[in-house]
């Protein structure tokens, strides 16, 4: 995409299960699709184990030998780099003490989480990426409500990791999601205030904000100085304000197991009935001369190649971004 904004595409929509998107030729096809749609950078999302070989730093290196080996792999498809990588320390991984369950809300877990972050920092620096995008805290239904102190505890560990990323020349961006224990605009602002603006930024995901009940455009305008990374996707639904607290909300809410039984929440840009004011949000980015990466994603849904092409069309024809 030829634009003053820098556009990247998230690969997570292809990696829908543990045993798919493993063969290199399947990954090449996805990368070529991204490239044919006009994107030349991608965002990776972490995973675990030998089949997450375009997700987990150690496994990527095992597959491609070195950072430059991986970059060569991307370049074969005319994808020129990695913008960023998403990591959730709350998600158990075999590489992290054999599926240990830890949370940023627990100060006793902080040393381990800081340790766990190091392979990501090294990898991202090695491939010339810019942002480590993280889930700052686990799901609300699993955690007692966080007071001001609780939020401060979470801020502490990210400040520590922010020092590491900073030293490696990377940014650290906290990615708000609609299930997180930091849920309201007030809580999110408190978390930002508990972190060091010099090293820790916010990853603003337009759909997650909307589902969670925060207006992405308004929030961005108020906190533009802290937003260092963007995920652009749409949603057709907002939480009623309660569903995110249902036990097992990852499934009961986001897979329609209970509540209103909505089986798919996230959609491509331009979807019918989409709630996000995408043009308004992108206009706000331009007004503020946003310099970070804008990562387009649509999460899991239908057909990944179709979603990538529809997103590309939207950028070209609704947002007027020339492809090349």
């Amino acid at each position, binding site marked *: 995409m030829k634009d003053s904004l820098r556009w990247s595409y998230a690969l997570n929509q292809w990696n829908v299960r543990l045993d798919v998107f493993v063969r290199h030729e399947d990954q090449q096809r996805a990368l*070529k*699709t991204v490239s044919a749609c006009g994107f030349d950078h991608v965002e990776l999302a972490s995973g675990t184990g030998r089949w997450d070989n375009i997700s987990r730093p150690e496994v990527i290196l095992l597959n491609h030998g070195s950072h430059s080996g991986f970059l060569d792999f991307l370049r074969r498809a005319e994808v020129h780099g990695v913008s960023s990588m998403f990591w959730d320390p709350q998600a158990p991984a075999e590489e992290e003490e054999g599926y240990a369950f830890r949370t940023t809300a627990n100060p006793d877990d902080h040393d381990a989480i800081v340790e766990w972050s190091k392979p990501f920092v090294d990898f991202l620096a090695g491939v010339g990426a810019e942002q480590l995008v993280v889930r700052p805290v686990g799901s609300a239904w699993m955690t007692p409500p966080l007071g001001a102190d609780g939020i401060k505890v979470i801020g502490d560990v990210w400040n520590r990791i922010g020092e590491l990323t900073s030293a490696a020349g990377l940014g650290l961006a906290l990615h708000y999601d609609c299930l997180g224990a930091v849920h309201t605009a007030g809580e999110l602002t408190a978390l930002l205030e508990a972190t060091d603006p010099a090293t820790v930024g916010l990853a603003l995901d337009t759909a997650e904000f909307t589902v969670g009940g925060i207006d992405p455009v308004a929030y961005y305008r108020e906190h533009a100085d802290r937003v260092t990374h963007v995920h652009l996707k749409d949603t057709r639904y907002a939480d009623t304000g309660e569903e995110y607290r249902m036990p097992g909300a990852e499934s009961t809410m986001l897979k329609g197991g209970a509540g209103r039984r909505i089986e798919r929440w996230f959609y491509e840009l331009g979807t019918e009935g989409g709630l996000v004011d995408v043009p308004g949000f992108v206009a706000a980015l331009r007004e503020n001369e946003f310099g970070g990466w804008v990562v387009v994603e649509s999460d899991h849904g239908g057909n990944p190649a179709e979603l990538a092409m*529809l*997103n590309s*069309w939207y950028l070209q*024809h609704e947002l007027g971004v020339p492809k090349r």
Partner: protein
Amino acid sequence: MTASERAIKWSYMDHWRSNGPSGPVDQWHSHKTMSAFLKQIKATGFDAIDTFDFRIWQMYGDYGGPAKYQQVVQDHGLERIVNTFHAADYDLRNYAPHLPETHEFILEDFRVTMGRWSEIQLDNIIVMPATLYYDMEPVTEDKLKYTAECWNKVGEITAGYGVRLTCHHEFFSGIQSEADIDTFYSYTDPRYVSLFVDTAQHCIAGVDPVALYNRHAHRVSGFHFKDTRNVATGDDHRHRPDSEIMAPTTGKWFYEMGTPHGLVDFEAMMTAVRDNGYRGWISVEHDKANKQGGDYSESTAVSRWYAKNVLEEIYR
């Protein structure tokens, strides 16, 4: 560089399936599925589309005719409809180019068809010039001559509408061997009958598409760029009742260009296109891409990626 400065523009031949709530549907299913199709074609950088003759009913029924449908295509940022493919029901009883007694029926078919399309300007109307192989064999000189006479007359009709009649040689059609193709063109009138090179079909028939093109370049009015992984063997080209889907040796003949293990040498093909000074449209096709777990969206993206990153480096 703008489209008008380019020597080559890319059109997409409209085979397409996506998954609907009741199973696979094509893009003509609804205005929404059509819009999603056109958006995806445009997003990957195609300039236009090709279509089938039998779609004209949906163009009239759903869009108010070819001109209005073309407007929808243009509303999605695409230039126009470039070619149409005339998929006829060949039958020895009434529609067999090598049987002169069926010619009047065929000519009448084209008079009617061209009238239906007359509200927009097409470049080519593409035909399979012969019946299925097993309905034409043995392929004799006389049969080739009758066939040529038939298309000379049809070509005159289409020329009256400013549209070129061009022949697309399926591997299972009566005229598919190198020798028969050459003979056929020696009997047809260059003013009225052109050649449309389908890279995969020739390759499956054991004919080198690059050499064929180089030999007939002055007669070529377009291309289907698609790939294959198999050459027909044994009776594949004359399998009853059908070769295209039912040949026992091969469950899926066609792949998008850029596929691994593809047999077509597209770089050589593109070099030949350049060296012959061809300017105009190349159509990309990958019919039945959804077979065996494949997916049209992805095949479309991968083939356009290949056109941009490999072929346009050779000639654009």
